[in-house]
């Protein structure tokens, strides 16, 4: 099991002689339409070769393969950039000439392309770099180039197409099924927790639109139930949308166009329902994409965006909800999703929520800004072909951390992380269950009176 995990050229086209030409042209197009050239030219002069990035990289720590280091990826892309695009070196624009064979041999394109999709985009490297080089940005730029060339892992590409041009969500869930699910969840909240809770849908002029990852309607229903109970008890004027209900934003992993298109759908829906705030449910990349890129959208003025973690923790501060800590007495270990803690800086709210709704929670070590990725970051958990890689390489650290904590429950406020951690506990046979934060909150907000004794409110 610990033999070097093989590369996986099955999803990508084989690297041919002219792939470098295509790569450079795609790079040129993206450079002209973005600000990526600036950090590349600065990083070309800043990297001191100290290799802190590589020592902290979760993937490299397991494989010890030089091609898995952030330094290799960044250096290769910067060399390509310097060779073909830096104005000081090259007077002739690349489009006016073809790449020479000698140039093709100088660059290790095959390893670069494969390495770009072995990165969890978790930013541990950026955190560790003394010069502040953002390796995630460079890897993301590399993936944008691959996307321009049409090279995207199958599942990511097809889920995105479904979300934008198909049924409107990454899991091909039809609208009728969403409405049925919402009805069912309202009943389920009453049956399981003894609480009457209405989930408003498509309510115009509500204050807030709550949009969660589509998995909350299917495998992670307890999270959606918990969120509904919190927002209901807070007395918030909120709604979900059955027309567009998937906050998941894979564009954050590989393509800025997809990122903005998905955000566009959310903002369009928020405008049509005339809400003032959009609340993103428990999902790391949805949160990061929304919070980080909201202001870049030309039509988002006047609408605020928040994470559900911030909303719930505010409700706790104001005393609007009163969870009972004693409903969650099992030992819980908190997992920090990279996109929520490192990228958005949301560190305290989830801890305040856990303090309020459980009696025994512990931290992983390291945690917070220095945490380890769940193992499935950067879209790796979505690509089927990467299952073995993600479980044996970045996922192994997670399994060790969970074992070391001695907890019975792993709490992860992110749909991606939950999916990955479930795979990890299955693979490594750990006797641990994986939940989201609002699952625990739902337990803590459950009624003291068992449901059967309440008067019939059908």
């Amino acid at each position, binding site marked *: 099991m610990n033999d070097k995990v093989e590369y996986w050229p099955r999803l990508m086209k084989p690297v041919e002689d002219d792939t470098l030409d295509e790569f450079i042209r795609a790079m040129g197009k993206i450079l002209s*339409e*973005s*600000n*990526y*050239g*600036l*950090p*590349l*030219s*600065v*990083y070309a*002069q*800043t*990297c*001191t*070769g*100290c*290799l*802190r990035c*590589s*020592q902290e990289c979760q993937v490299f720590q397991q494989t*010890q393969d*030089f091609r898995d*280091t952030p*330094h*290799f990826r960044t*250096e290769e892309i910067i060399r390509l950039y310097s060779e073909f695009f830096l104005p000081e070196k090259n007077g002739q624009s690349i489009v006016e000439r073809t790449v020479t064979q000698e140039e093709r041999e100088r660059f290790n394109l095959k390893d670069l392309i494969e390495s770009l999709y072995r990165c969890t985009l978790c930013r541990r490297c*950026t955190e*560790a770099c*003394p*010069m*502040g*080089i*953002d390796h995630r*940005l460079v890897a*993301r730029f590399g993936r944008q180039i691959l996307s321009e060339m049409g090279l995207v892992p199958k599942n990511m590409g097809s889920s995105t197409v479904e979300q*934008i041009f198909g049924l409107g969500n990454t899991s091909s869930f039809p609208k009728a099924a969403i409405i049925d699910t919402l009805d069912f969840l309202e009943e389920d909240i009453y049956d399981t927790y003894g609480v009457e809770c209405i989930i408003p849908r498509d309510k115009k002029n509500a204050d807030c639109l709550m949009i969660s990852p589509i998995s909350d309607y299917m495998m992670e229903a307890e999270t959606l139930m918990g969120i509904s109970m919190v927002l209901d008890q807070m007395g918030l004027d909120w709604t979900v949308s059955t*027309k567009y209900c998937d906050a998941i934003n894979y564009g954050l992993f590989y393509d*800025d*166009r997809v990122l*903005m*298109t998905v955000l*566009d*759908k959310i*903002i*369009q*829906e928020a*405008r*049509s329902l005339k809400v003032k705030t959009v609340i993103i449910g428990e999902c790391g990349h949805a949160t990061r994409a929304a919070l*980080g*890129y909201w*202001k*870049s*959208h*030309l*039509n988002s003025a006047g609408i605020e965006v928040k994470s559900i973690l911030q909303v719930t923790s505010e409700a706790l501060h104001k005393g609007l909800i009163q969870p009972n800590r004693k409903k969650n007495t099992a030992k819980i270990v908190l997992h920090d999703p990279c996109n929520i803690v490192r990228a958005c*800086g949301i560190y305290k709210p989830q801890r305040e929520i856990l303090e309020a709704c459980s009696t025994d929670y512990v931290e992983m070590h390291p945690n917070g800004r*220095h945490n380890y990725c769940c193992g499935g970051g950067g879209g790796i958990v979505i690509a089927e072909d990467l299952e073995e890689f993600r479980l044996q390489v970045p996922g192994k650290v997670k399994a060790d951390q969970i074992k070391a904590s001695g907890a019975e429950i792993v709490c992860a406020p992110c749909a991606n992380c939950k999916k990955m951690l479930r795979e990890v506990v299955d693979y490594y046979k750990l006797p641990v269950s994986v939940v989201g934060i609002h699952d625990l909150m739902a337990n803590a907000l459950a009624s003291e009176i068992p449901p059967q004794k309440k008067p019939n409110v059908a």
Partner: protein
Amino acid sequence: MDQALDFTQGPLFRLAFVILIAGLIRRFVLIAWPMLAAWIRARDRSLNWAAIFRDIGVWLFPIGHVWRSKDIFTIVSYAFHIGLILVPLFLMEHVSLWTASSGLTLPVLPKLAADIFTVVTILGVSILLVVRIVSRLVRTFTRTEDYVALLLILVPFLSGLLAGRPWNPLSCNAMLLLHILSAEALMITIPFSKLSHCIFFPFSRLCAELGSKLVTDSAYLYKSPLSEGGES
């Protein structure tokens, strides 16, 4: 020999100093304009200054990070900078030169501290050189420029320590000449190599923020395929 010393301490030093400062300013200006252009071009011009300044502050004195890494290469990479910056500026012999040429009075390092810092820097650079040769990971990614930079730092510090000491193998003046010439070689190399990371260090995180911003004049991002807002 005296003439050579006067020349290297006088006009040649001034030339090297001017090249150093002008070179660093040039490097800065060459990124300052693109940074401004990127900011102007960005759709969302807000910047998270708190995070940027926090990061600059933490990395000026990354004691926590270096200690937690428990790695010799990391600890030495940081530790040798202390002497590298303090000794050329605040050593007593250097301070009299600064005062004589510019009238500036800088504080003076106590002799023992200066010696300790110098020795730490020399040992540090030697350890880094050894690691760069011996460790497979580091060797794979080491360029010629990295070895040259380390030697360029080692020679002035070693010759500076030895000049005026009883165990100096050369004559005092010869060692001093070596010290001055090698220091000047280092000064003129800084603006044209990775050693200029000193000037870029505060700007990398700012450039990362600017680099990830979406731009106003991008054709394929401006027109979302699903139209721009309005009633559904």
